């Protein structure tokens, strides 16, 4: 017989999570292209910390760009991780949800911290 999960999944939440992952994937696709193109262009003259700070530091544009990038990752990755844990482990959905929420908090905190630090390192 089909096993019932300990935490029944909510149809509305599941569909919204799916949509959130798809929309964040669209944002990520754009961000990754810009990010990779920037890396390729930036390393042409050799890579140094000073060069990175010189480009990203103090720039509101890069702060917003990496802020959006981090937020898209914060939405996208934990939803995917949730599906993987559900398929590949015996953990209950309650535990999986908790783990993925923690992953989202960690990704958001660390990512935004880096983006803000880089912004604060440069400029006048």
């Amino acid at each position, binding site marked *: 017989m*089909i096993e019932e999960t300990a935490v029944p999944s*909510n*149809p509305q939440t599941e*569909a919204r999570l799916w*949509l959130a992952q798809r929309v964040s994937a669209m944002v990520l696709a754009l961000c990754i292209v810009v990010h990779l193109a920037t890396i390729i262009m930036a390393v042409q003259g050799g890579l140094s910390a000073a060069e990175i700070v010189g480009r990203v530091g103090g720039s509101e544009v890069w702060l917003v760009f990496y802020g959006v990038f981090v937020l898209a990752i914060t939405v996208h990755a934990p939803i995917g991780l949730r599906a993987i844990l559900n398929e*590949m482990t015996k953990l209950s959905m309650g535990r999986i949800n908790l783990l993925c929420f923690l992953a989202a908090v960690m990704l958001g905190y660390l990512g935004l911290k880096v983006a803000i630090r880089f912004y604060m390192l440069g400029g006048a």
Partner: protein
Amino acid sequence: MSEETFTVSVWRGDDEVGRYQDYEVPRMESQTVLDVITYIQRRLDPNLSYRFACRVGVCGSCAMTVNGKPRWTCRTHVSKVIEDGRLEVAPLRNLKVIKDLSVDMTDFFDKWAKAEARFVGGSTRHDDFAKVSPDDKRRQEASAGIECIGCGVCYATCDVVAWNTEYLGPAALNRAWTLINDERDTGRLSRLKAVSGTGGCQACHSQQGCVERCPKHLNPTASIAGLKRATAMAALKGELK
């Protein structure tokens, strides 16, 4: 005159205990895998269990794993699948084995019921016929998936079914999508709720194994993608509460 033979390895046993047993079977012209299995049971080993009915690709009951791939054995010619003169026949994957090549289809059909993959009418005999144009977009979506005969080949192919015991599977979701597009059906919202969840349409990875293997050349992945869009739109409107 000595007749040409070939070796067929057939799974004997169930999920817990079993092994492949080799049989030497005469090679014949236009021989199907079902012919081979039937030969073994009637001439070599009457203890062999397997399931079939129509023999002509209508009923969908003779699906088995042939050389690693799920197929209708009645419509699979030996010449098309034989590898190095050998054939390996096993029960369908992802289903409990009753004995030898016979699987228990209970979970498969329970999931059709769970997906509310049944027509829910709203009219009576006093109402006029629903007029549905063959050119209607929804009618075409329904027609694209309607020919499923429930053989379980897609279900046996699907890795998500193997990984996620809750997953409703390609056939049930495909049927649900044909009903979502049925002009006369009144079970839309309830069905969308039924197919949305950790075991629902969102769990599909779009690997398209079901598309690759469906003997009716249907595209369950496209149907599931339709369900993903429909559930997402309904969730945005707050209709899946």
